[in-house]
C-alpha cells in the first residue's frame, strides 16, 4: 500500500506474467504437468516429422504412377494426373475451360459480395447475371459452345452450384416459413409447421432419393424434369426447413417491446418485419445459420446417391483407375482440402459479419 501512496506503479511478480509466467502456469505448474508437457512435446515432434516426411520430403509431386510406387511418401502426382475428373467429373475433357471459367466467376462474385458497402440491388443483379453466365458456360448450345447435358456436369462447379443456389433460394423460403410458423393465422401456421416437421423428420438422402426416383412417377407420361433440377429442389426444401427453425429462434429472441414500438409507430406487419424485427433476429442467428450453410455445402455430396458427380464423388470415381488406386488417401486429402477452404472461408466470414453487425450495439 505504501507504494501506491508514494505514487509508484506496482506490478505483479515477473514470474507470473509474460511468456515465463504463462509457461509456468499452463505447462509446468507441478511435476505431473511437466511430465505431460514433455510427453506431448515428444509425440508432436515424432508425429510431425513423420507427417512432414510423408507429405513433403519423400512425396512425389510430378511423375507417373510408377514413380509414385517407387517413392515412400505421398503421391501428389495423382491430383495432377486426375485433376480434370476430380474437379469437373465427366465434363468433356476438351471443354475444361468452361467449368473452370464458371468456377472462377463464382469465386470472384463471392469475394466481391463480402464487401458490405456493395450490398444492395446491383449486387443481387450481379449474382443473377453470374448464375446465368455460369449456366450458359456449363450448358452450352449457344454462342457456338458445344451443348453439354446436365448428366455430364460434375465436380467442383456442381458442388458450388447445388450448395449456393440451394442456400440462396432456401433462405427467403426459410424466412417465410419461420414467419408462417409464428403467424396468428391458423392455416398458414399449420402449413408451415407441417412442412418444417415433415422435411426435418426425414434424412436428406431420402429427400434426394424421392426427388430422383419417386417424383417422376407422379408426373404425367412424357414429362420429365431434369435430374439435377430435382436434386436442387430437394436440397432447397431441406435447407429451408432448417433455416426456418434457426430464424424462429432469432425471432423469439427479439424483445416484445420491439414489436410494440413498431406497431405504435404505425408500421405494417411486413415493414416492421423487414425493417425492425428480421435485422435483429438474423444478427442473433448468424452462428446457427452459417452452421446450416456449412452443413448444406458438405451434404451436397449426398447427390452421389442419385448418380450425380459432385466433388467428392468425382474424386472417389477418379481413383477407380487400377494404376492409381493405391493413392486414394492423397486424392481424398485433396477433396478434403477443397471442402475445407470453402467451409473455413464461410466460418471466418461469419465471425467477421458478427463483429461488423455488432458495431455500435455494445458500449
Amino acid at each position, binding site marked *: 500500500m505504501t507504494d501506491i501512496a508514494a505514487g509508484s506503479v506496482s506490478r505483479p511478480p515477473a514470474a507470473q506474467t509474460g511468456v515465463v509466467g504463462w509457461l509456468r502456469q499452463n505447462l509446468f505448474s507441478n511435476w505431473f504437468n511437466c511430465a505431460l508437457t514433455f510427453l506431448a512435446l515428444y509425440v508432436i515432434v515424432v508425429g510431425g516429422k513423420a507427417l512432414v516426411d510423408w507429405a513433403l520430403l519423400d512425396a512425389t509431386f510430378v511423375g507417373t504412377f510408377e514413380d509414385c510406387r517407387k517413392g515412400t511418401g505421398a503421391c501428389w502426382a495423382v491430383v495432377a494426373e486426375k485433376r480434370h475428373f476430380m474437379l469437373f467429373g465427366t465434363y468433356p475433357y476438351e471443354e475444361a475451360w468452361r467449368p473452370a471459367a464458371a468456377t472462377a466467376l463464382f469465386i470472384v462474385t463471392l469475394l466481391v459480395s463480402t464487401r458490405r458497402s456493395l450490398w444492395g440491388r446491383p449486387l443481387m443483379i450481379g449474382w443473377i447475371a453470374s448464375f446465368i453466365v455460369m449456366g450458359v458456360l456449363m450448358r452450352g448450345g449457344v454462342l457456338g459452345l458445344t451443348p453439354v447435358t446436365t448428366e455430364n456436369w460434375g465436380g467442383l462447379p456442381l458442388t458450388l452450384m447445388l450448395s449456393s443456389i440451394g442456400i440462396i433460394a432456401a433462405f427467403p423460403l426459410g424466412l417465410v416459413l419461420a414467419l408462417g410458423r409464428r403467424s396468428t393465422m391458423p392455416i398458414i401456421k399449420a402449413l408451415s409447421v407441417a412442412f418444417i416437421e415433415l422435411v426435418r423428420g426425414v434424412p436428406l438422402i431420402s429427400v434426394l432419393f424421392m426427388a430422383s426416383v419417386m417424383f417422376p412417377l407422379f408426373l404425367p407420361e412424357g414429362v420429365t424434369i431434369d435430374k439435377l433440377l430435382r436434386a436442387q429442389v430437394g436440397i432447397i426444401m431441406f435447407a429451408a426447413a432448417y433455416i426456418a427453425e434457426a430464424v424462429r429462434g432469432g425471432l423469439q429472441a427479439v*424483445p416484445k*417491446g*420491439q414489436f*410494440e*414500438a413498431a*406497431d*405504435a*409507430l*404505425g*408500421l*405494417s406487419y411486413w*415493414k416492421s418485419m423487414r*425493417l*425492425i424485427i428480421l*435485422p*435483429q433476429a438474423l*444478427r442473433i442467428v448468424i452462428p446457427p445459420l452459417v452452421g446450416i450453410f456449412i452443413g448444406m455445402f458438405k451434404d451436397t455430396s449426398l447427390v452421389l446417391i442419385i448418380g450425380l458427380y459432385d466433388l467428392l464423388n468425382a474424386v472417389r470415381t477418379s481413383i477407380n483407375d487400377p494404376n492409381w488406386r493405391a493413392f486414394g488417401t492423397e486424392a481424398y486429402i485433396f477433396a478434403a482440402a477443397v471442402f475445407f477452404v470453402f467451409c473455413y472461408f464461410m466460418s471466418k466470414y461469419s465471425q467477421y459479419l458478427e463483429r461488423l*453487425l455488432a458495431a*455500435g*450495439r*455494445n*458500449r
Partner: protein
Amino acid sequence: MVDQPFIQLNRVNKWYGEFHVLRDISLSVAKGERIVICGPSGSGKSTMIRCINRLEEHQQGQIFVEGIELTNDVKNVDAIRREVGMVFQSFNLFPHLTVLENLTLAPIWVKQMPKAEAEDIAMTYLKRVQIPEQAHKYPGQLSGGQQQRVAIARSLCMNPKVMLFDEPTSALDPEMIKEVLDVMVELAESGMTMLVVTHEMGFARTVADRVIFMDRGEIVEEDTPEEFFTHPKSDRTKLFLSQILGH
C-alpha cells in the same frame, strides 16, 4: 359539437383469461388536455392506455379516437396509430439503427416522406429534447435518460395529436428522471394532448389538468390535481397517496 372529446372510452372491459383487468372504464379526454393516471401496480393503468392504440384489444365497450372507432378493421387501427404517439417504460428504441435512423424510419416508411425532409424534422426534435449531438450514435451508446428522450422525439416525428406515456421514468436512474420530465413538461406547455401513467406526483401537480386514480381495474377517483392531493375522497386513494407520499 363545440367540444367533441378527442379520446372517448365507453364502458370498456377487458380480461386476461379469468382476470378482469379493466372494469367498465369510461373516460373522455378533450383536445389539449393533460391527464395523469396513477394507481398501484396491476391496477390496469398501462393496459388502459395500451388499449387506446390497440397494443391490447378491449373485449367490451367502445373506444373512439378523433371520432374513429377502434375495431378489428386494420384501416381504423392504422389511422388511429398515425394520430397517437407512444413512449414506453423500456424505451424500445431500435438497437440496430442510429438515433437519427430511429427517428426517420416511420416518417419515411409510413408517411412516405423524402429522406432529407425526414432528417430535417428529426434534427428539429432532437434539438428540442436537447441531444442533437447524439444523432449518429446507436441507442446502446446512450444513457437511459437520453434514450427515453430519443424515444419521445421518435414519437413526435410522426406529428401525433396525442401522446401516451407508459411509466416513462420508471426504468431510469434517479438522476436521469428530471431530464425526461423536463422534456415532458415542455411538451405539455406546447399544448400536446397527453395521457401519462406515472408515479411522479410532482409532475402530476405541475402539469396535469386531471388526475385519475385506478385500482383493481376501475377508475376510483378523478379530479384536478389540487383536489386530488389535498382532499382525496375514497379510502383507497388516501391509502395509495399515504404510501407513495409518505416518505
